[in-house]
């Protein structure tokens, strides 16, 4: 139940929000550093939740004394990125949360800044995607779906998130592997997960692609049938093959990671990588990931930098096929 201390913490947070203040946490240890986290999205979304989970775990593990989270939202992160590149330059105690969505947004919006200008620290989590169909659908397997797509892509409307987002990209990749021209696809973008879900439950589209977490409960309840997931291997507790097992050579994680600003010292970079690594290996982080359906896919430093470059090339190519870049 609720105790007094918790209640006070709660009211303090309520007061803070009332004046639209930033989420400041009291310092309870002086020797640990203060962290600044930059979120190029509005409060509440995936990046913001990642930032708040990082803050929570780092504090509970006593790795930092506290952190300050700054939100600058808009346009898939391309409004915030220039600010992080220019105004946060050289700040060694800062991190920006970003991910695959930003890579796509930079390309599609022809943004002036890109992720080669910031310092890659670590890829932390990924959400694999799911290909689902309504329970009444004639498609029993991913193979059925691909066969129908090959026969006539215009007869297979697929619902997902906004055009050029991770869902659309995965659909493009699946079509590409199957030899179906991406330009012929019938993709029906929805702004939010809820709307796409209701189109599926109402049997208005042939299939849906989105993060597995969006569909998991409907799949468990039998309202949707899960055909395949985009993870690298089978997942515990999920009764569906990966796309690769189903004969579609595609793997995709909607990944999220952290970057430091440009122009930080090598010592700061190494210390930051170590801090994030320690956090990512903690039990508290594992619990956060499990609660939120995030798959931990830790990759740090230079390997991460290489991965970002490769993923940018892959996404750029498929967005071009889809006519978005």
């Amino acid at each position, binding site marked *: 139940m609720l105790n007094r201390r918790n209640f006070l913490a709660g009211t303090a947070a309520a007061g803070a929000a009332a004046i639209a203040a930033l989420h400041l946490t009291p310092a309870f240890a002086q020797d640990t550093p203060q962290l600044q986290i930059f979120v190029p999205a509005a409060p509440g979304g995936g990046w913001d939740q990642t930032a708040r989970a990082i803050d929570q775990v780092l504090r509970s593990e006593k790795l930092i004394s506290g952190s300050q989270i700054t939100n600058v939202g808009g346009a898939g992160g391309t409004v915030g990125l220039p600010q992080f590149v220019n105004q946060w330059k050289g700040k060694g105690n800062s991190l920006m949360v970003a991910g695959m969505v930003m890579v796509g947004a930079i390309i599609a919006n022809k943004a002036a800044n890109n992720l080669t200008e910031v310092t890659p620290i670590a890829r932390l989590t990924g959400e694999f995607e799911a290909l689902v169909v309504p329970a009444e659908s004639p498609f029993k397997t991913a193979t059925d779906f691909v066969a129908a797509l090959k026969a006539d892509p215009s007869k297979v409307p697929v619902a997902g998130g906004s055009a050029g987002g991770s869902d659309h990209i995965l659909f493009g990749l699946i079509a590409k592997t199957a030899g179906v021209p991406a330009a012929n696809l*019938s993709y029906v973008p929805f702004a939010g997960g809820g709307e796409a879900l209701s189109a599926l439950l109402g049997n208005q589209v042939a299939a849906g692609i989105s993060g597995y977490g969006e569909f998991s409960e409907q799949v468990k309840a039998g309202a949707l049938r899960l055909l395949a997931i985009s993870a690298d291997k089978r997942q515990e507790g999920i009764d569906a093959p990966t796309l690769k097992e189903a004969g579609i050579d595609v793997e995709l994680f909607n990944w999220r990671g952290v970057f430091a600003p440009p122009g930080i010292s090598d010592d700061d970079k190494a210390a930051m990588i170590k801090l994030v690594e320690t956090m990512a290996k903690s039990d508290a982080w594992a619990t956060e990931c499990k609660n939120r359906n995030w798959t931990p896919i830790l990759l740090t430093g230079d390997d991460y930098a290489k991965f970002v470059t490769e993923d940018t090339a892959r996404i750029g190519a498929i967005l071009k096929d889809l006519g978005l870049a």
Partner: protein
Amino acid sequence: MDTLGHLAHGFAVAFTPTNLLWCLVGTTLGTAIGVLPGLGPALTIALLLPITYQVVPEASFILFAGIYYGAMYGGSTTSILLNTPGESATIVTALEGNRMARSGRGGAALATSAIGSFVAGTLGTMGVAFLAPTVVKYAIKFGPAEYFSLMVLAFITVSAVLGSSSVRGLTSLFAGFVIGMIGVDLQTGQPRFTFGTAELLDGVDVIIVAVGLFAVGETLYMASRRYAGKDEIVPLKGSLYMTAAEWARSWKPWLRGAAIGFPIGALPAGGAEIPTFLSYAVEKKLSKHKEEFGTVGAIEGVAGPEAANNASAAGVLVPMLTLGLPTSATAAIMLSAFQSYGINPGPLLLTTQANLVWGLIASLFIANIILVVLNLPLIGLWVRLLKIPAPQLYAGILVFATVGTYGISQSPIDLVILYLLGAAGFLMRRFDFPTAPVIIGMILGPLAETQFRRAMTIANGDWTVFYRHPLSLTLLALAFLGLVGPHIWAWIQQRRRRGPEHVPGDA
């Protein structure tokens, strides 16, 4: 069905002293953020998400639900008094509410909106408790074709707010379309009308447009007229609250507003704005005091839309609690709060988390009572705002509008847009163009476009979807009836009287 048993159990959960306190904190906070134009319930709940690390799920959802309902109450206060809508769902309230305030009936406008919110909020919450599974079955039958037909119906009915000159009204409506098109096109991912400005890629917030056109435009107009005439402060006329006649004129709009708001709110893409437009149009059509609309302010035009927005707020919870579908920004954030407890909201939520869900529903009833108790005495305080002399009052509105707009996304570009729209609002006022259709065009235009294109994509370019689907056909038939019905009716009346009679101002 043991709904009542569940509900009784829910009240047991909600009636613990700590949970009541959370409800009080939530409703108070919600009222406060509803008053501020920039801060909405979605943003507030997002900022409060870290609280989920500290307290039990029941407590935080009761808090969040209080904020959600509270914001719907608070948003109307500034709409009525200052012509500065705090939430997009209370934009319509400003139309008649502010007129009433300026003719000395501000107290009555606030009272009818508070009591109407209570009535509709309670009816809506009862709908959530008793009808949710039935309603949701119909709600998910709504596909893009049905939504498009609903938009057509909305366009036909909202012609009521176009004003006396349809050319001017339509001009405003189309200006709204253009503003609504700004940003990345959802269907193709391409930017439209952004002129290379990254901040415009997400479009222009409807609150900024409403505040710019209504509040800033009005302030500039007042400033320009400052020395043209005598400054007058309208004294409060009659009783502070509602008179018997005003009660009599309010209760039917409350019930009609609730009946319009709840089902549309329950639609996955229904939203809170469309029911307020529809309710306004219906009340204007049915009112026996049409001459008061747009002049001294008609109480029906406040009572109906206010009831509609609160009922739709309850409706939004239907798909969220029964299917785990987040259909509004606030619902989506509440769902992410579920996840930080490791609860995955979905179709099984009602069975696996019965305590939580019924506790939440019970606390919504309590929140409604707290809100009406909280808001009625405040009316006396609020109306004193109107006793502030015009220069100070309007200067205050300007500060309030500016701070609130900056609060939406801390973007200086938003302020530029606000003042540009303010200048536009001034010119529109000066040359007698109605401003409300801009807002309506801005909300309905892009929605209609998106749903139309979705329907076309799914149907592979086949136009017949709009009349092959029975629900869609019904809506289109209603729209058609709305368009030609009044003319046929007038013609029949004319025939009956055996002679042509011109009824001025009758559509």
